[in-house]
Protein backbone atom coordinates (compact mmCIF):
# COMPACT_ATOMS: atom_id res chain seq x y z
CA UNK A 1 0.00 0.00 0.00
CA UNK A 2 1.48 3.30 -1.07
CA UNK A 3 -0.20 5.91 1.12
CA UNK A 4 1.83 8.75 -0.39
CA UNK A 5 0.49 7.96 -3.86
CA UNK A 6 -3.06 7.49 -2.57
CA UNK A 7 -2.98 10.87 -0.78
CA UNK A 8 -1.22 12.78 -3.56
CA UNK A 9 -4.34 13.80 -5.55
CA UNK A 10 -6.06 15.10 -2.40
CA UNK A 11 -2.99 17.01 -1.29
CA UNK A 12 -2.59 18.57 -4.70
CA UNK A 13 -6.16 19.89 -4.69
CA UNK A 14 -6.19 20.89 -1.02
CA UNK A 15 -2.94 22.82 -1.30
CA UNK A 16 -4.08 24.86 -4.31
CA UNK A 17 -7.33 26.43 -3.19
CA UNK A 18 -8.36 27.96 -6.51
CA UNK A 19 -6.50 25.61 -8.86
CA UNK A 20 -9.03 22.81 -9.43
CA UNK A 21 -11.98 25.13 -10.06
CA UNK A 22 -9.93 27.47 -12.24
CA UNK A 23 -8.75 24.56 -14.41
CA UNK A 24 -12.27 23.19 -14.69
CA UNK A 25 -13.55 26.61 -15.75
CA UNK A 26 -10.75 26.90 -18.31
CA UNK A 27 -11.85 23.52 -19.69
CA UNK A 28 -15.34 24.95 -20.22
CA UNK A 29 -17.11 23.90 -17.01
CA UNK A 30 -19.54 26.27 -15.29
CA UNK A 31 -18.40 26.67 -11.67
CA UNK A 32 -20.59 27.55 -8.69
CA UNK A 33 -19.08 28.62 -5.39
CA UNK A 34 -21.00 27.58 -2.27
CA UNK A 35 -20.55 29.49 0.97
CA UNK A 36 -21.90 26.83 3.28
CA UNK A 37 -22.71 23.12 3.51
CA UNK A 38 -26.42 24.04 3.49
CA UNK A 39 -26.22 25.32 -0.10
CA UNK A 40 -27.82 22.37 -1.96
CA UNK A 41 -24.96 21.29 -4.21
CA UNK A 42 -27.02 18.46 -5.73
CA UNK A 43 -29.26 21.05 -7.46
CA UNK A 44 -26.23 22.87 -8.84
CA UNK A 45 -24.68 19.62 -9.99
CA UNK A 46 -27.88 18.56 -11.77
CA UNK A 47 -27.97 21.99 -13.46
CA UNK A 48 -24.53 21.30 -14.90
CA UNK A 49 -22.40 23.33 -12.50
CA UNK A 50 -19.27 22.15 -10.74
CA UNK A 51 -20.16 23.09 -7.15
CA UNK A 52 -17.20 23.90 -4.90
CA UNK A 53 -17.00 25.32 -1.40
CA UNK A 54 -15.65 28.80 -0.70
CA UNK A 55 -13.59 28.03 2.40
CA UNK A 56 -11.63 31.19 3.15
CA UNK A 57 -7.94 31.59 2.57
CA UNK A 58 -4.79 32.77 4.26
CA UNK A 59 -3.61 36.33 3.95
CA UNK A 60 -4.80 39.64 5.27
CA UNK A 61 -8.31 40.96 4.82
CA UNK A 62 -7.81 44.69 4.54
CA UNK A 63 -10.40 45.29 1.79
CA UNK A 64 -13.06 43.43 3.78
CA UNK A 65 -12.01 45.25 6.98
CA UNK A 66 -13.09 48.49 5.32
CA UNK A 67 -16.63 47.15 5.00
CA UNK A 68 -17.19 44.84 7.97
CA UNK A 69 -17.60 45.75 11.61
CA UNK A 70 -14.96 44.73 14.15
CA UNK A 71 -17.30 42.00 15.47
CA UNK A 72 -17.52 40.06 12.20
CA UNK A 73 -15.73 36.72 12.23
CA UNK A 74 -12.51 36.02 10.36
CA UNK A 75 -14.29 33.58 7.99
CA UNK A 76 -16.63 36.34 6.81
CA UNK A 77 -13.67 38.68 6.43
CA UNK A 78 -11.61 36.17 4.52
CA UNK A 79 -14.26 35.13 2.00
CA UNK A 80 -15.43 38.69 1.38
CA UNK A 81 -11.86 39.88 0.92
CA UNK A 82 -11.24 37.19 -1.69
CA UNK A 83 -14.25 38.53 -3.65
CA UNK A 84 -13.19 42.15 -3.31
CA UNK A 85 -9.70 41.21 -4.52
CA UNK A 86 -11.30 39.62 -7.60
CA UNK A 87 -9.87 36.19 -6.83
CA UNK A 88 -12.86 34.34 -8.32
CA UNK A 89 -13.09 35.50 -11.95
CA UNK A 90 -13.94 31.95 -13.01
CA UNK A 91 -17.11 31.60 -10.91
CA UNK A 92 -20.43 31.69 -12.78
CA UNK A 93 -22.52 31.68 -9.66
CA UNK A 94 -22.17 32.01 -5.91
CA UNK A 95 -24.71 30.34 -3.64
CA UNK A 96 -24.98 31.63 -0.09
CA UNK A 97 -27.13 30.13 2.59
CA UNK A 98 -28.69 31.92 5.48
CA UNK A 99 -26.73 30.80 8.53
CA UNK A 100 -26.10 33.95 10.53
CA UNK A 101 -26.62 37.68 10.09
CA UNK A 102 -22.96 38.25 9.29
CA UNK A 103 -23.00 35.85 6.34
CA UNK A 104 -26.29 37.34 5.14
CA UNK A 105 -24.56 40.72 5.06
CA UNK A 106 -21.52 39.25 3.33
CA UNK A 107 -23.90 38.02 0.62
CA UNK A 108 -25.27 41.56 0.17
CA UNK A 109 -21.77 43.06 0.10
CA UNK A 110 -20.60 40.42 -2.37
CA UNK A 111 -23.52 41.27 -4.70
CA UNK A 112 -22.98 45.00 -4.35
CA UNK A 113 -19.25 44.85 -5.00
CA UNK A 114 -19.02 42.13 -7.68
CA UNK A 115 -22.15 42.87 -9.74
CA UNK A 116 -21.01 40.57 -12.56
CA UNK A 117 -21.32 37.41 -10.47
CA UNK A 118 -24.71 35.69 -10.25
CA UNK A 119 -25.75 35.06 -6.66
CA UNK A 120 -28.45 32.99 -5.01
CA UNK A 121 -29.29 32.68 -1.33
CA UNK A 122 -30.62 29.39 -0.01
CA UNK A 123 -32.87 30.02 2.97
CA UNK A 124 -33.07 26.63 4.58
CA UNK A 125 -35.37 26.31 7.60
CA UNK A 126 -33.56 27.06 10.84
CA UNK A 127 -35.70 24.50 12.66
CA UNK A 128 -35.01 21.24 10.86
CA UNK A 129 -37.71 19.02 12.38
CA UNK A 130 -41.44 18.83 11.71
CA UNK A 131 -43.77 18.79 8.71
CA UNK A 132 -43.77 22.56 8.31
CA UNK A 133 -39.98 22.55 7.95
CA UNK A 134 -40.19 19.84 5.31
CA UNK A 135 -42.83 21.77 3.31
CA UNK A 136 -40.79 24.96 3.67
CA UNK A 137 -37.55 23.26 2.62
CA UNK A 138 -39.18 21.64 -0.41
CA UNK A 139 -40.65 24.98 -1.49
CA UNK A 140 -37.25 26.64 -1.10
CA UNK A 141 -35.53 23.91 -3.14
CA UNK A 142 -38.23 24.28 -5.85
CA UNK A 143 -37.64 28.03 -5.89
CA UNK A 144 -33.85 27.56 -6.25
CA UNK A 145 -34.42 24.94 -8.95
CA UNK A 146 -36.56 27.39 -10.96
CA UNK A 147 -33.93 30.10 -10.58
CA UNK A 148 -31.26 27.71 -11.86
CA UNK A 149 -33.47 26.48 -14.71
CA UNK A 150 -33.88 30.07 -15.85
CA UNK A 151 -30.10 30.16 -16.30
CA UNK A 152 -29.33 26.68 -17.61
CA UNK A 153 -32.55 25.17 -18.96
CA UNK A 154 -34.75 22.47 -17.42
CA UNK A 155 -33.36 20.18 -14.70
CA UNK A 156 -34.91 16.76 -15.27
CA UNK A 157 -35.90 14.48 -12.38
CA UNK A 158 -33.42 11.93 -13.76
CA UNK A 159 -30.53 14.43 -13.61
CA UNK A 160 -31.47 15.47 -10.09
CA UNK A 161 -31.85 11.86 -8.93
CA UNK A 162 -28.46 11.07 -10.44
CA UNK A 163 -26.84 13.99 -8.59
CA UNK A 164 -28.54 13.00 -5.32
CA UNK A 165 -27.28 9.45 -5.77
CA UNK A 166 -23.71 10.62 -6.48
CA UNK A 167 -23.66 12.83 -3.39
CA UNK A 168 -25.22 10.05 -1.30
CA UNK A 169 -22.67 7.48 -2.51
CA UNK A 170 -19.88 9.94 -1.82
CA UNK A 171 -21.13 10.63 1.71
CA UNK A 172 -21.33 6.90 2.37
CA UNK A 173 -17.70 6.45 1.33
CA UNK A 174 -16.64 9.40 3.47
CA UNK A 175 -18.55 7.94 6.44
CA UNK A 176 -16.71 4.66 5.93
CA UNK A 177 -13.39 6.51 5.85
CA UNK A 178 -14.26 8.39 9.06
CA UNK A 179 -15.22 5.12 10.73
CA UNK A 180 -11.97 3.53 9.59
CA UNK A 181 -9.96 6.49 10.89
CA UNK A 182 -11.67 6.13 14.30
CA UNK A 183 -10.97 2.39 14.34
CA UNK A 184 -7.40 2.52 13.04
CA UNK A 185 -5.94 6.02 13.51
CA UNK A 186 -2.48 4.55 12.97
CA UNK A 187 -3.42 3.95 9.32
CA UNK A 188 -5.20 7.20 8.53
CA UNK A 189 -4.28 10.29 10.52
CA UNK A 190 -6.63 13.12 11.37
CA UNK A 191 -4.58 15.43 9.16
CA UNK A 192 -4.89 13.03 6.20
CA UNK A 193 -8.63 12.66 6.80
CA UNK A 194 -9.09 16.42 6.87
CA UNK A 195 -7.05 16.79 3.67
CA UNK A 196 -9.40 14.30 1.98
CA UNK A 197 -12.38 16.33 3.24
CA UNK A 198 -10.95 19.67 2.08
CA UNK A 199 -10.31 18.14 -1.35
CA UNK A 200 -13.91 16.82 -1.48
CA UNK A 201 -15.17 20.37 -1.07
CA UNK A 202 -13.03 21.63 -3.93
CA UNK A 203 -13.51 18.78 -6.44
CA UNK A 204 -16.15 17.17 -8.59
CA UNK A 205 -17.57 14.45 -6.32
CA UNK A 206 -17.62 12.07 -9.28
CA UNK A 207 -13.85 12.44 -9.46
CA UNK A 208 -13.29 12.46 -5.69
CA UNK A 209 -15.39 9.34 -5.07
CA UNK A 210 -13.13 6.74 -6.78
CA UNK A 211 -10.04 8.31 -5.18
CA UNK A 212 -11.65 8.10 -1.72
CA UNK A 213 -12.76 4.52 -2.43
CA UNK A 214 -9.20 3.62 -3.38
CA UNK A 215 -7.97 4.82 0.04
CA UNK A 216 -10.76 2.90 1.73
CA UNK A 217 -10.08 -0.39 -0.03
CA UNK A 218 -6.33 -0.10 0.48
CA UNK A 219 -6.75 0.57 4.20
CA UNK A 220 -9.64 -1.80 4.91
CA UNK A 221 -7.38 -4.78 4.51
CA UNK A 222 -4.24 -3.21 6.01
CA UNK A 223 -3.13 -3.94 9.56
CA UNK A 224 -2.59 -1.01 11.90
CA UNK A 225 1.04 -0.56 12.89
CA UNK A 226 1.34 -1.56 16.53
CA UNK A 227 3.36 0.09 19.26
CA UNK A 228 2.56 3.46 20.74
CA UNK A 229 -0.89 4.05 22.14
CA UNK A 230 -1.70 7.72 21.83
CA UNK A 231 -4.42 9.65 23.58
CA UNK A 232 -7.48 9.89 21.31
CA UNK A 233 -8.83 13.36 20.65
CA UNK A 234 -12.13 14.50 19.15
CA UNK A 235 -12.20 17.94 17.47
CA UNK A 236 -15.25 20.18 17.31
CA UNK A 237 -15.95 23.79 16.54
CA UNK A 238 -16.52 26.49 14.00
CA UNK A 239 -15.65 26.64 10.34
CA UNK A 240 -11.94 25.79 9.98
CA UNK A 241 -10.21 24.59 6.86
CA UNK A 242 -6.63 24.61 8.15
CA UNK A 243 -5.21 21.11 8.25
CA UNK A 244 -2.35 22.78 10.18
CA UNK A 245 -4.45 22.75 13.37
CA UNK A 246 -4.89 18.99 13.14
CA UNK A 247 -1.20 18.55 12.29
CA UNK A 248 -0.28 20.60 15.36
CA UNK A 249 -2.42 18.33 17.56
CA UNK A 250 -1.00 15.15 16.11
CA UNK A 251 2.56 16.49 16.35
CA UNK A 252 1.87 16.97 20.07
CA UNK A 253 1.37 13.23 20.38
CA UNK A 254 -2.36 12.53 20.12
CA UNK A 255 -4.47 10.86 17.45
CA UNK A 256 -7.38 12.93 16.12
CA UNK A 257 -9.97 10.17 15.82
CA UNK A 258 -13.20 12.02 15.21
CA UNK A 259 -14.63 15.43 14.55
CA UNK A 260 -17.74 17.54 14.45
CA UNK A 261 -16.52 20.15 11.98
CA UNK A 262 -18.11 21.67 8.91
CA UNK A 263 -14.98 20.83 6.90
CA UNK A 264 -15.16 17.35 8.33
CA UNK A 265 -17.51 14.54 9.21
CA UNK A 266 -20.53 16.75 9.98
CA UNK A 267 -21.01 17.53 6.30
CA UNK A 268 -20.94 13.85 5.31
CA UNK A 269 -22.72 12.15 8.19
CA UNK A 270 -26.27 12.09 6.85
CA UNK A 271 -27.98 9.28 5.02
CA UNK A 272 -29.71 9.14 1.69
CA UNK A 273 -33.43 9.29 2.49
CA UNK A 274 -36.26 8.48 0.08
CA UNK A 275 -38.99 10.82 -1.04
CA UNK A 276 -41.94 10.81 -3.43
CA UNK A 277 -40.02 13.27 -5.59
CA UNK A 278 -36.28 14.01 -5.89
CA UNK A 279 -36.95 17.39 -4.26
CA UNK A 280 -38.54 15.72 -1.26
CA UNK A 281 -35.63 13.26 -0.97
CA UNK A 282 -33.19 16.15 -1.11
CA UNK A 283 -35.14 18.17 1.46
CA UNK A 284 -35.20 15.20 3.83
CA UNK A 285 -31.44 14.72 3.47
CA UNK A 286 -30.72 18.33 4.45
CA UNK A 287 -33.21 18.28 7.30
CA UNK A 288 -32.03 14.98 8.72
CA UNK A 289 -28.32 15.81 8.68
CA UNK A 290 -26.45 16.68 11.88
CA UNK A 291 -27.43 20.32 12.30
CA UNK A 292 -24.59 22.80 12.32
CA UNK A 293 -24.69 25.35 15.19
CA UNK A 294 -26.76 27.71 13.01
CA UNK A 295 -29.61 25.14 12.79
CA UNK A 296 -31.73 23.44 15.42
CA UNK A 297 -33.75 20.32 15.92
CA UNK A 298 -36.33 20.01 18.65
CA UNK A 299 -35.19 17.69 21.42
CA UNK A 300 -31.61 17.61 20.24
CA UNK A 301 -29.16 18.95 22.80
CA UNK A 302 -25.88 19.88 21.07
CA UNK A 303 -23.92 18.93 24.22
CA UNK A 304 -25.46 15.48 24.59
CA UNK A 305 -24.91 14.87 20.88
CA UNK A 306 -21.23 15.76 21.21
CA UNK A 307 -20.74 13.60 24.30
CA UNK A 308 -22.31 10.72 22.38
CA UNK A 309 -20.04 11.30 19.36
CA UNK A 310 -16.93 11.57 21.53
CA UNK A 311 -17.85 8.33 23.31
CA UNK A 312 -18.61 6.59 20.00
CA UNK A 313 -15.09 7.46 18.84
CA UNK A 314 -13.63 6.49 22.26
CA UNK A 315 -12.10 9.94 22.66
CA UNK A 316 -10.04 10.70 25.77
CA UNK A 317 -10.53 14.44 25.29
CA UNK A 318 -12.12 17.09 23.08
CA UNK A 319 -10.41 20.08 21.48
CA UNK A 320 -12.56 22.97 20.28
CA UNK A 321 -11.52 25.19 17.42
CA UNK A 322 -13.49 28.36 18.05
CA UNK A 323 -13.57 31.28 15.67
CA UNK A 324 -13.86 34.57 17.51
CA UNK A 325 -17.24 36.24 16.92
CA UNK A 326 -18.83 33.05 15.61
CA UNK A 327 -22.03 33.60 17.59
CA UNK A 328 -23.91 30.40 16.64
CA UNK A 329 -20.95 28.29 17.82
CA UNK A 330 -20.40 30.47 20.90
CA UNK A 331 -24.02 29.96 21.98
CA UNK A 332 -23.66 26.19 21.60
CA UNK A 333 -20.28 26.10 23.32
CA UNK A 334 -21.70 26.84 26.78
CA UNK A 335 -24.12 23.86 27.03
CA UNK A 336 -21.65 21.68 25.09
CA UNK A 337 -18.79 22.41 27.50
CA UNK A 338 -21.08 21.79 30.47
CA UNK A 339 -22.20 18.45 29.06
CA UNK A 340 -18.55 17.42 28.59
CA UNK A 341 -17.69 18.52 32.16
CA UNK A 342 -20.64 16.53 33.51
CA UNK A 343 -19.51 13.50 31.49
CA UNK A 344 -15.96 13.86 32.82
CA UNK A 345 -14.48 14.38 29.34
CA UNK A 346 -11.59 16.89 29.45
CA UNK A 347 -11.79 19.69 26.90
CA UNK A 348 -9.50 22.40 25.59
CA UNK A 349 -10.60 25.34 23.48
CA UNK A 350 -8.39 27.11 20.97
CA UNK A 351 -9.17 30.33 19.22
CA UNK A 352 -8.94 30.10 15.44
CA UNK A 353 -8.33 32.80 12.88
CA UNK A 354 -9.41 31.77 9.40
CA UNK A 355 -6.78 33.69 7.57
CA UNK A 356 -3.79 32.29 9.40
CA UNK A 357 -2.20 29.00 10.23
CA UNK A 358 -2.13 28.21 13.96
CA UNK A 359 0.11 30.54 15.97
CA UNK A 360 2.97 29.00 17.93
CA UNK A 361 1.42 29.84 21.33
CA UNK A 362 -1.26 27.24 20.73
CA UNK A 363 1.37 24.52 20.61
CA UNK A 364 2.07 24.79 24.35
CA UNK A 365 -1.62 24.50 25.16
CA UNK A 366 -2.13 21.49 22.94
CA UNK A 367 1.03 19.75 24.19
CA UNK A 368 0.03 20.38 27.82
CA UNK A 369 -3.45 19.00 27.11
CA UNK A 370 -1.96 15.86 25.56
CA UNK A 371 0.43 15.46 28.54
CA UNK A 372 -2.57 15.80 30.83
CA UNK A 373 -4.54 13.13 28.94
CA UNK A 374 -1.54 10.84 28.95
CA UNK A 375 -0.97 11.28 32.68
CA UNK A 376 -4.59 10.53 33.50
CA UNK A 377 -4.51 7.48 31.21
CA UNK A 378 -1.42 6.22 32.98
CA UNK A 379 -3.38 6.18 36.25
Amino acid at each position, binding site marked *: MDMTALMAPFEKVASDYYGYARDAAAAGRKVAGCMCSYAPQELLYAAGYLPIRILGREGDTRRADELLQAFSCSFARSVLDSALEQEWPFLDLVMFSHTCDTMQNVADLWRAHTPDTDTLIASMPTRTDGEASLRYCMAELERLKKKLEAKTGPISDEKLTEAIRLYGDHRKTMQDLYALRAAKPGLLSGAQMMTISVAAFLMDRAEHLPLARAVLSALNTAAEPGGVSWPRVFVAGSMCRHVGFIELMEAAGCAVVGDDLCVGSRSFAHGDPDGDTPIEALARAYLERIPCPAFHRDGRHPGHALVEAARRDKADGVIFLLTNFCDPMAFDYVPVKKALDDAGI*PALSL*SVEQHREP*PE*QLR*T*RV*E*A*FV*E*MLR*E*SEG*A
Partner: protein
Amino acid sequence: MSDAPIYAGVDVGSATAKAVLLDATGAVLAASVIASGGNLTDAAQRCLSLASDKAGVSPDACAAVIATGYGRERVAARSRSVTEITCHARGARALFPEARSVVDIGGQDSKAIALDERGRVLRFEMNDKCAAGTGRFLEVMARLLEIELDEFGGRAMHAAAPVTISSTCTVFAESEVISHLARNQNIDDIIAGLCNAIASRVYGLASRARLAPPTIMTGGVARNEGVVKAMEALLGAPIRTPDDPQTVGAYGAALLALESE
Protein backbone atom coordinates in the same frame (compact mmCIF):
# COMPACT_ATOMS: atom_id res chain seq x y z
CA MET B 1 34.05 15.53 40.41
CA SER B 2 31.91 12.49 41.13
CA ASP B 3 30.48 10.14 38.54
CA ALA B 4 27.08 9.78 40.22
CA PRO B 5 24.22 10.38 37.77
CA ILE B 6 22.69 13.84 37.66
CA TYR B 7 19.25 14.84 36.44
CA ALA B 8 18.57 18.28 35.00
CA GLY B 9 15.57 20.44 34.30
CA VAL B 10 16.04 23.48 32.09
CA ASP B 11 13.22 26.04 31.86
CA VAL B 12 13.84 28.61 29.14
CA GLY B 13 11.26 31.33 29.63
CA SER B 14 10.72 34.57 27.79
CA ALA B 15 12.44 36.62 30.50
CA THR B 16 14.74 34.19 32.33
CA ALA B 17 16.32 30.79 31.79
CA LYS B 18 16.47 28.49 34.80
CA ALA B 19 18.27 25.20 35.47
CA VAL B 20 17.93 22.80 38.42
CA LEU B 21 20.19 19.78 38.98
CA LEU B 22 19.18 16.79 41.12
CA ASP B 23 21.09 13.80 42.38
CA ALA B 24 19.70 10.28 42.12
CA THR B 25 17.76 10.72 45.37
CA GLY B 26 15.98 13.81 44.06
CA ALA B 27 17.94 16.22 46.28
CA VAL B 28 18.68 19.60 44.70
CA LEU B 29 22.39 20.00 43.95
CA ALA B 30 22.18 23.49 42.45
CA ALA B 31 19.88 25.94 40.72
CA SER B 32 20.58 28.89 38.44
CA VAL B 33 18.62 31.79 36.97
CA ILE B 34 19.91 34.03 34.17
CA ALA B 35 18.33 36.48 31.73
CA SER B 36 17.14 34.74 28.55
CA GLY B 37 18.30 37.48 26.21
CA GLY B 38 18.06 37.15 22.46
CA ASN B 39 19.71 33.77 21.97
CA LEU B 40 17.71 31.05 23.70
CA THR B 41 20.02 28.19 22.73
CA ASP B 42 22.90 30.06 24.30
CA ALA B 43 20.86 30.97 27.41
CA ALA B 44 19.92 27.32 27.92
CA GLN B 45 23.55 26.29 27.70
CA ARG B 46 24.72 29.04 30.03
CA CYS B 47 22.20 28.39 32.80
CA LEU B 48 22.97 24.67 32.68
CA SER B 49 26.73 25.39 32.90
CA LEU B 50 26.20 27.83 35.75
CA ALA B 51 24.23 25.27 37.75
CA SER B 52 26.86 22.60 37.01
CA ASP B 53 29.63 24.92 38.21
CA LYS B 54 27.71 25.63 41.41
CA ALA B 55 27.22 21.92 42.02
CA GLY B 56 30.81 21.15 41.10
CA VAL B 57 29.82 18.65 38.42
CA SER B 58 30.33 18.43 34.68
CA PRO B 59 27.32 19.41 32.56
CA ASP B 60 28.02 16.30 30.47
CA ALA B 61 27.34 14.13 33.51
CA CYS B 62 23.57 14.59 33.16
CA ALA B 63 21.81 11.24 32.71
CA ALA B 64 18.66 12.99 31.50
CA VAL B 65 17.70 16.59 30.71
CA ILE B 66 14.08 17.68 30.43
CA ALA B 67 13.55 21.02 28.74
CA THR B 68 10.51 23.17 29.37
CA GLY B 69 9.30 26.73 28.88
CA TYR B 70 8.70 28.77 25.80
CA GLY B 71 12.24 28.05 24.52
CA ARG B 72 12.14 24.31 25.27
CA GLU B 73 12.89 23.30 21.69
CA ARG B 74 16.04 25.46 21.81
CA VAL B 75 17.68 23.40 24.58
CA ALA B 76 20.38 21.45 22.73
CA ALA B 77 21.09 19.14 25.68
CA ARG B 78 17.46 17.99 26.12
CA SER B 79 16.51 14.32 26.27
CA ARG B 80 12.92 15.45 25.64
CA SER B 81 10.70 18.45 26.22
CA VAL B 82 7.63 18.77 28.40
CA THR B 83 5.36 21.79 28.66
CA GLU B 84 5.68 24.20 31.56
CA ILE B 85 2.12 23.32 32.68
CA THR B 86 3.12 19.76 33.52
CA CYS B 87 6.49 20.88 34.96
CA HIS B 88 5.06 23.59 37.25
CA ALA B 89 2.43 21.14 38.47
CA ARG B 90 5.11 18.51 39.14
CA GLY B 91 7.42 20.94 40.92
CA ALA B 92 4.64 22.48 43.01
CA ARG B 93 3.31 19.13 44.17
CA ALA B 94 6.79 17.98 45.18
CA LEU B 95 7.24 21.10 47.31
CA PHE B 96 3.67 21.12 48.63
CA PRO B 97 2.16 17.62 48.44
CA GLU B 98 -1.21 19.01 49.60
CA ALA B 99 -1.39 21.42 46.63
CA ARG B 100 -4.66 21.35 44.65
CA SER B 101 -3.92 24.24 42.33
CA VAL B 102 -1.06 26.28 40.88
CA VAL B 103 -0.99 29.84 39.62
CA ASP B 104 2.11 30.54 37.56
CA ILE B 105 2.81 34.06 36.37
CA GLY B 106 5.88 34.25 34.21
CA GLY B 107 7.47 36.77 31.93
CA GLN B 108 4.95 36.59 29.11
CA ASP B 109 2.14 34.34 30.16
CA SER B 110 0.10 33.25 33.13
CA LYS B 111 -1.46 29.91 33.85
CA ALA B 112 -4.01 28.56 36.29
CA ILE B 113 -3.68 24.81 36.84
CA ALA B 114 -6.13 22.64 38.77
CA LEU B 115 -4.67 19.45 40.28
CA ASP B 116 -6.44 16.27 41.31
CA GLU B 117 -5.99 14.66 44.74
CA ARG B 118 -2.82 12.95 43.50
CA GLY B 119 -1.33 16.16 42.12
CA ARG B 120 -1.96 15.42 38.45
CA VAL B 121 -3.12 18.14 36.07
CA LEU B 122 -6.93 18.13 35.90
CA ARG B 123 -7.58 21.36 33.96
CA PHE B 124 -5.66 24.44 33.02
CA GLU B 125 -6.21 27.88 31.55
CA MET B 126 -3.62 30.12 29.94
CA ASN B 127 -3.80 33.80 29.11
CA ASP B 128 -4.44 34.82 25.53
CA LYS B 129 -1.82 35.71 23.01
CA CYS B 130 -0.80 39.01 24.59
CA ALA B 131 1.39 39.38 27.65
CA ALA B 132 -0.93 41.75 29.54
CA GLY B 133 -0.63 41.43 33.30
CA THR B 134 2.51 39.29 33.36
CA GLY B 135 6.10 39.81 34.48
CA ARG B 136 6.82 41.90 31.41
CA PHE B 137 4.02 44.27 32.45
CA LEU B 138 5.59 44.68 35.92
CA GLU B 139 9.01 45.36 34.40
CA VAL B 140 7.65 48.15 32.22
CA MET B 141 5.74 49.70 35.14
CA ALA B 142 8.76 49.50 37.46
CA ARG B 143 10.87 51.30 34.88
CA LEU B 144 8.18 53.95 34.41
CA LEU B 145 7.98 54.57 38.16
CA GLU B 146 11.77 54.31 38.59
CA ILE B 147 11.40 51.59 41.22
CA GLU B 148 13.54 48.45 41.46
CA LEU B 149 11.42 45.42 40.54
CA ASP B 150 12.44 43.72 43.80
CA GLU B 151 11.04 46.65 45.81
CA PHE B 152 7.77 46.74 43.90
CA GLY B 153 5.79 44.23 45.99
CA GLY B 154 7.00 45.63 49.31
CA ARG B 155 5.98 49.16 48.33
CA ALA B 156 2.47 47.94 47.54
CA MET B 157 2.13 46.83 51.15
CA HIS B 158 2.50 50.46 52.26
CA ALA B 159 -0.39 51.72 50.15
CA ALA B 160 -3.09 53.54 52.07
CA ALA B 161 -5.62 53.85 49.24
CA PRO B 162 -4.72 51.85 46.12
CA VAL B 163 -5.73 53.52 42.87
CA THR B 164 -7.76 51.64 40.28
CA ILE B 165 -5.95 50.61 37.12
CA SER B 166 -8.64 49.48 34.74
CA SER B 167 -6.51 47.71 32.14
CA THR B 168 -3.66 45.21 32.22
CA CYS B 169 -2.75 46.07 28.65
CA THR B 170 0.75 47.46 29.15
CA VAL B 171 0.20 50.36 26.78
CA PHE B 172 -3.17 51.41 28.27
CA ALA B 173 -1.99 50.91 31.86
CA GLU B 174 1.08 53.02 31.19
CA SER B 175 -1.06 55.98 30.21
CA GLU B 176 -3.29 55.43 33.24
CA VAL B 177 -0.22 55.45 35.49
CA ILE B 178 0.99 58.66 33.87
CA SER B 179 -2.42 60.24 34.55
CA HIS B 180 -2.16 59.23 38.20
CA LEU B 181 1.37 60.67 38.38
CA ALA B 182 0.10 63.90 36.83
CA ARG B 183 -2.51 64.08 39.60
CA ASN B 184 0.36 63.63 42.10
CA GLN B 185 -1.01 60.35 43.45
CA ASN B 186 1.05 58.52 46.03
CA ILE B 187 3.47 56.10 44.31
CA ASP B 188 2.71 53.27 46.73
CA ASP B 189 -0.99 53.60 45.94
CA ILE B 190 -0.23 53.39 42.22
CA ILE B 191 1.97 50.32 42.75
CA ALA B 192 -0.77 48.63 44.77
CA GLY B 193 -3.23 49.48 41.99
CA LEU B 194 -0.96 47.76 39.45
CA CYS B 195 -0.62 44.67 41.64
CA ASN B 196 -4.41 44.51 42.03
CA ALA B 197 -4.83 44.81 38.25
CA ILE B 198 -2.57 41.79 37.64
CA ALA B 199 -4.32 39.80 40.35
CA SER B 200 -7.78 40.46 38.98
CA ARG B 201 -6.71 39.41 35.51
CA VAL B 202 -5.20 36.17 36.77
CA TYR B 203 -8.27 35.65 38.97
CA GLY B 204 -10.29 35.42 35.73
CA LEU B 205 -8.14 32.47 34.64
CA ALA B 206 -8.31 30.94 38.11
CA SER B 207 -12.12 31.04 38.12
CA ARG B 208 -12.35 29.54 34.65
CA ALA B 209 -10.05 26.71 35.74
CA ARG B 210 -12.17 26.35 38.93
CA LEU B 211 -9.11 26.29 41.20
CA ALA B 212 -9.47 24.73 44.63
CA PRO B 213 -7.29 25.56 47.66
CA PRO B 214 -4.53 25.15 48.67
CA THR B 215 -3.09 27.26 45.85
CA ILE B 216 0.62 27.47 45.16
CA MET B 217 2.00 30.46 43.31
CA THR B 218 5.02 29.95 41.07
CA GLY B 219 6.95 31.94 38.47
CA GLY B 220 8.88 35.17 38.92
CA VAL B 221 5.83 37.27 39.77
CA ALA B 222 5.22 35.13 42.89
CA ARG B 223 8.19 37.01 44.40
CA ASN B 224 6.01 40.11 44.34
CA GLU B 225 4.27 40.30 47.71
CA GLY B 226 1.78 42.87 46.45
CA VAL B 227 0.44 40.56 43.72
CA VAL B 228 0.34 37.55 46.07
CA LYS B 229 -1.63 39.49 48.73
CA ALA B 230 -4.03 40.82 46.08
CA MET B 231 -4.57 37.26 44.74
CA GLU B 232 -5.21 35.98 48.27
CA ALA B 233 -7.83 38.67 48.78
CA LEU B 234 -9.59 37.69 45.55
CA LEU B 235 -9.39 33.93 46.11
CA GLY B 236 -10.39 34.34 49.77
CA ALA B 237 -7.74 31.84 50.82
CA PRO B 238 -4.06 31.95 51.71
CA ILE B 239 -1.56 31.25 48.93
CA ARG B 240 1.69 29.39 49.48
CA THR B 241 4.80 30.51 47.71
CA PRO B 242 7.97 28.44 47.47
CA ASP B 243 11.28 29.97 48.63
CA ASP B 244 12.38 30.19 45.01
CA PRO B 245 9.21 30.41 42.88
CA GLN B 246 11.15 31.14 39.69
CA THR B 247 12.79 27.71 39.54
CA VAL B 248 9.71 25.56 40.26
CA GLY B 249 9.24 24.75 36.55
CA ALA B 250 12.88 23.71 36.17
CA TYR B 251 12.63 21.72 39.41
CA GLY B 252 9.55 19.90 38.08
CA ALA B 253 11.39 19.22 34.82
CA ALA B 254 14.36 17.80 36.73
CA LEU B 255 12.03 15.53 38.74
CA LEU B 256 10.50 14.28 35.46
CA ALA B 257 14.04 13.63 34.19
CA LEU B 258 14.76 11.59 37.29
CA GLU B 259 11.45 9.69 36.99
CA SER B 260 12.04 8.97 33.30
CA GLU B 261 15.10 6.91 34.16
